[in-house]
């Protein structure tokens, strides 16, 4: 099967082409070149997302109405919606949402900023990596709920402990995503920057950071979701208002319709954040094909 033993075939063909060389004459046998490119580049398909949600809700409601899904297992979406409507009517929704959003925004912004900073340090400095990475590995898996008793003592039962919970929750995944992204930046671009005498800080800002941006944005998706999840854990501690507190109350009363309404609010938050990050990705990463 070497390339040289094709002489047989070559001599079999003998004359080069003959009439075939005139493509006009051989028109009947002409076929378009098979298209092999394309694909592997997801395009935006509209309406599918909303349709999927609608389909799930309709099936679920039908299942509940017909009794296939027992009310004990899962309340019907209509019940959850009713609970939600009450929440709106009593005006409680805004108090809960307001309290939660504030914690979320403060905690997540701080967690992301610190996380990106520490992630950059780990990605850039050998010493920071050796010292901090094991610390991250060791501290990340500590469950926030297990530490609640200590959090109460350290940060009090005011906003401090709530913001701290969300901050820690979004900090660690951001660190990991960022440092992974930094590791993945093409070092030949860094060498280019150095050869032009760019300052260390310029290289970090203009080469490392944009190069790690895809990973950081992926990390932001994850950390934002985790921050929303942690609303519940955060609002375990002495929170009067907040979506998490509302869910906890509903859970402890086994008021599944309210529980579901609360969870739906978290889902909606997740959707909005996901959509925003998607927009940010399209904008910040528009240089990608």
């Amino acid at each position, binding site marked *: 099967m070497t*390339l040289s033993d*094709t002489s047989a075939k070559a001599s079999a063909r003998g004359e*080069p*082409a003959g009439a075939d060389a*005139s493509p006009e004459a051989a028109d009947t046998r*002409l076929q378009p*070149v098979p298209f*092999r490119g394309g694909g592997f580049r997801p395009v935006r398909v509209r309406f599918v997302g909303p349709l999927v949600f609608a389909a799930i809700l309709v099936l679920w409601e039908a299942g509940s109405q017909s009794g296939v899904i027992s009310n004990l297992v899962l309340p019907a979406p209509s019940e959850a919606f009713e609970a939600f409507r009450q929440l709106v009517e009593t005006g409680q929704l805004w108090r809960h949402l307001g309290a939660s959003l504030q914690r979320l925004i403060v905690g997540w912004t701080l967690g992301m900023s610190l996380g990106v900073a520490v992630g950059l340090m780990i990605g850039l400095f050998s010493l920071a990596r050796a010292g901090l990475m094991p610390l991250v590995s060791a501290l990340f898996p500590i469950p926030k709920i297990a530490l609640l008793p200590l959090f109460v003592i350290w940060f009090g039962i005011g906003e401090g402990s709530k913001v701290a919970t969300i901050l820690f929750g979004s900090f660690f995944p951001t660190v990991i995503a960022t440092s992974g992204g930094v590791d993945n930046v093409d070092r030949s671009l860094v060498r280019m920057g150095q050869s032009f005498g760019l300052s260390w800080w310029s290289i970090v800002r203009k080469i490392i950071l944009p190069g790690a941006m895809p990973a950081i944005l992926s990390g932001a998706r994850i950390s934002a979701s985790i921050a929303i999840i942690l609303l519940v854990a955060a609002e375990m501690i002495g929170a009067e208002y907040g979506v998490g507190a509302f869910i906890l109350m509903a859970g402890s009363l086994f008021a599944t319709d309210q529980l579901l309404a609360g969870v739906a609010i978290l889902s909606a938050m997740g959707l909005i954040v996901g959509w925003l990050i998607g927009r940010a990705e399209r904008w910040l990463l528009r240089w990608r094909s």
Partner: protein
Amino acid sequence: MDLLLRGVSHTYGDTQVLRDIDLAVGEGEIVCIIGPSGCGKSTLLRFIGGLERPDAGEVLLAGAPPAGSLNPLTYVFQDFALLPWRTVEGNVSLVLEDHGLSAAERREVIDDVLARTGLSDFKAALPRQLSGGMKQRVAIARALSVRPAVMLMDEPLSALDSQTRELLMDDLVGLWQRERFTACYVTHNLAEAVRLGHKIVVLSRRPGRIREIVEIDRDLADRQQADAKLDAIQRDLWQLLRDEARAADRELADDTV
């Protein structure tokens, strides 16, 4: 296999890249494509290889690929396109793995093409450990390994020193004499073009149109020695391109005033 391009035009965004390209490449013919930088040569090659579709016009193919060919239409990419996570050997192996060859057969093919491109010592090297010219040779070795019926080569020797280039050109000529593959060969080196081309297609500056098609009758095997006629053709091509470039230059200068 024959290739036929009919009225191929293409526009990227606002810039028209190719306009009304009509071209026939007969079986066993090597067509060299020359033209100013950015005139659409690589784009044209992508259309021929079926990797992209032109806005207008069609690219047609006639004839069945020969039996032994693993990948009838095969590329040598301008930017090499090597997988950074595979060694030299692995990069070649990649394109052989889908064809049901036994490991021993694969190894034999790989050893052969690496020896021909002078890379036997670097079998186990990763792309980042290679020099520019070595990467280009891996790309050539990979293309050779699938025994293509049509070769689409985008400046395949541009990063090589003149001697290595000479050796590989000889190798290509030898291969062509045995296998009579069809080829589209983009190059900036006029000497290469007159050495390898049965036809030389001169594209105008962007939007690329066919300025001229120069046919060279002389058999490839006979082009080794210094040859006044070939030199004359090369000079003509040079003149043609220079005029084109001058025009472009003037136009640019006008633009930027």
